[in-house]
């Protein structure tokens, strides 16, 4: 370890000022913070909180239930990222429904659906289109290419979300009291930092755009500690993130998706925090509107309070007892980007 990294760790370990609650809102940050053991390198006065940065964790049960309904229809195959498979719906998960005969396929990229649809024209393929600003451009490309290829058997069930409105919700709510944000790293590569800069100024909370390596994360946390109380944004990930958005990606998204209200697990409906297919592309929609139901599989599940930083994963009565990665009761324990999953893994 080089001298400067040692100094950085010593600064963070010996910090003895005001108690700080710092939130990250990017699933990969959550995973990397856990993997690098960063909480153990910080003073007791610095608490890291995983916010609603994992797209799977913020998906409501009504959406999962609708996917299952679709997958049970004779001519429909639901196609999804692997993380979605075990998220509990109100009764069962997609994996559970698959065991009961529903048709569900897992892919690594939404673009794989093009080949499936081309080779099986008698079937309809519905993609479980969840994600933030990072993934929405990929869906825009998919819709464009499906249209160019004349594939009429592709649909999206959308639960697409945008980060600035939910971060503003967190800044406003008295319950969370966040002293600084690690801006969502991958989201920022598409949106740029300007929108987060505006939030920093408006709510006088510091933001740092951070990379994903251990030292990058430690530096960003140290910067937030030094910036406390200041309504500023620092970009500590300039190789991938600029102030301006990725215009080409943004234009594609704006052409195909309109802004809409969206339901977030545990937070309810937040105005203008989602994206849906625009009227011009509505023929690609699998019935995504009004999927706002947010029913818990287990009433005692505290995912909602964990996502907003009101509770730590260990404070949930189910944590580590009936709720484990093998038998998740809530989405935060399912996803490899979920905070309960990582708390459980690090306590093993």
């Amino acid at each position, binding site marked *: 370890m080089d001298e400067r990294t040692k100094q950085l760790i010593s600064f963070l370990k010996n910090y003895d000022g005001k108690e700080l609650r710092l939130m990250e809102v990017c699933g990969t940050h959550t995973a990397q913070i856990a993997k690098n053991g960063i909480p153990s390198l910080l003073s007791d006065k610095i608490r890291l909180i995983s916010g609603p940065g994992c797209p799977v964790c913020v998906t409501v049960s009504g959406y999962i239930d609708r996917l299952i309904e679709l997958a049970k229809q004779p001519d429909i195959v639901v196609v999804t990222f692997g993380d*979605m498979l075990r998220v509990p719906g109100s009764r069962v998960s997609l994996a559970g429904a698959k065991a009961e005969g529903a048709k569900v396929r897992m892919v690594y*990229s939404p673009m794989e659906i093009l080949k499936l649809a081309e080779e099986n024209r008698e079937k309809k393929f519905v993609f479980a289109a969840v994600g933030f600003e990072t993934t929405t451009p990929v869906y825009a490309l998919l819709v464009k290419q499906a249209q160019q290829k004349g594939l009429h058997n592709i649909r999206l069930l959308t639960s697409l979300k945008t980060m600035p409105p939910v971060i503003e919700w967190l800044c406003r709510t008295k319950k969370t009291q966040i002293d600084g944000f690690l801006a969502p790293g*991958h989201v920022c590569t598409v949106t740029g930092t300007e929108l987060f800069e505006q939030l920093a100024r408006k709510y006088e909370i510091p933001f740092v755009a951070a990379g994903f390596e251990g030292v990058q994360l430690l*530096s960003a946390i140290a910067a937030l500690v030094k910036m406390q109380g200041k309504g500023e944004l620092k970009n500590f990930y300039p190789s991938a993130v600029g102030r301006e958005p990725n215009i080409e990606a943004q234009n594609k998204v704006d052409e195909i998706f309109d802004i809409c209200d969206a339901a977030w697990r545990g937070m309810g409906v937040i105005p203008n925090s989602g994206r849906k297919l625009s009227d011009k592309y509505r023929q690609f929609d699998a019935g995504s509107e009004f999927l706002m139901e947010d029913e818990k599989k287990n009433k005692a599940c505290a995912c909602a309070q964990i996502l907003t930083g009101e509770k730590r994963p260990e404070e949930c009565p189910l944590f580590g007892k009936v709720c484990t990665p093998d038998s998740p009761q809530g989405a935060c324990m399912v996803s490899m980007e979920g905070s309960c999953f990582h708390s459980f893994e690090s306590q093993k």
Partner: protein
Amino acid sequence: MCVALPGKVIEVNKEKALVSFEGNQVEVQAGLVPVKEGDRVLVHAGCILQVLKESEAEELEQLFRELEEMQAL
């Protein structure tokens, strides 16, 4: 699913590109940002999201400098 990986563009063919991830070559979509052979890029869900501007080592240097300049409490 929020994961993005850095790789290097080997070849560009219209809206597709061949990207090497530490030697593993994968065909990805290149329609979201202009790319050329040799670019270091960030790939998410089978698509290039962004071209990376500088090396990690340079970036880290810069970052340490900035951190030192920030007023300590």
